């Protein structure tokens, strides 16, 4: 794959153009990855606020009415509700997997069946999350949409 970067002060906004004869799976992943760059969220830290890009978030969890971003080895709080994130991220690789959790499927390694109608999701950092029965179809559709979007 040839990569060309044009750097010029006349460009007011960064733009990515992909020229290809055919859109394959790997290119599709790259496009999805690039698309996630459009989502940046404000997170609370001990000293103030910081910006967290969506592609760095493994999952978003809600505990006692508070929402948290879980990155590879960091956790940030934020003021938006899980529902707001679900709406905002519906065209990304994020999908709701339980009443209180939204997962970034880009970091989903595998799933295993549990005994009480739940699946256990293993993330690429080794963390495990629960997928409840109600949301299994959502997850299947989201993963299938990676391919269908090509």
């Amino acid at each position, binding site marked *: 794959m040839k990569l060309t970067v044009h750097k010029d002060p006349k460009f007011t906004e960064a733009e990515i153009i992909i020229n290809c004869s055919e859109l394959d799976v790997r290119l599709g992943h790259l496009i999805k990855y690039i698309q996630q760059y459009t989502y940046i969220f404000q997170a609370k830290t001990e000293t103030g606020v910081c910006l967290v890009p969506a592609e760095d978030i493994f999952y978003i969890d809600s505990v006692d009415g508070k929402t948290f971003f879980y990155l590879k080895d960091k956790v940030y709080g934020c003021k938006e509700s899980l529902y707001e994130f679900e709406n905002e991220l519906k065209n990304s690789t994020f999908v709701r997997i339980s009443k209180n959790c939204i997962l970034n499927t880009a970091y989903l390694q595998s799933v295993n*069946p549990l005994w009480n109608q739940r699946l256990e999701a293993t993330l690429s950092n080794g963390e495990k999350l629960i997928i409840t029965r109600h949301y299994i179809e959502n997850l299947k559709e989201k993963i299938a949409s990676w391919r269908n979007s090509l």
Partner: protein
Amino acid sequence: MKKALCKHISRISLIFSAAVIAATLSNLLNGHLNKHYYYLLELFGFVIAIEAVYSLLAKIPFKSKLIYSIVNFSIMYLIFMIFSYFGSWLSFTISGFMLSTGIFLVIYGIISYYYSYTLKKDAIEINEKLTSNRQ
């Protein structure tokens, strides 16, 4: 093909169930008080109760498979006994009790197997999709 077949089977089952329930209700409302009509409604109530318990238990984070199995089995057995008693499905003699327990075990086994099978199938499907997406 498989997906389409599953879709059709689900649709046929739904339509058939709805038609049977509607016909049963219509017959009862028109004064045909045959005990088979009551039995059909009782059976419908039993299936709804079983599904409700499965959905409810799926929301509880059980610590082990053993605890889940004991709780699940006990509640299901209780529901079956309540329906058997009030619906006079079976006679409550020792042989009747053993027969009803045997029937329950068969139904419980089939339902448990079905849920476990569909969950395993979902897991395999998701893992396959994840693998093919990575390639």
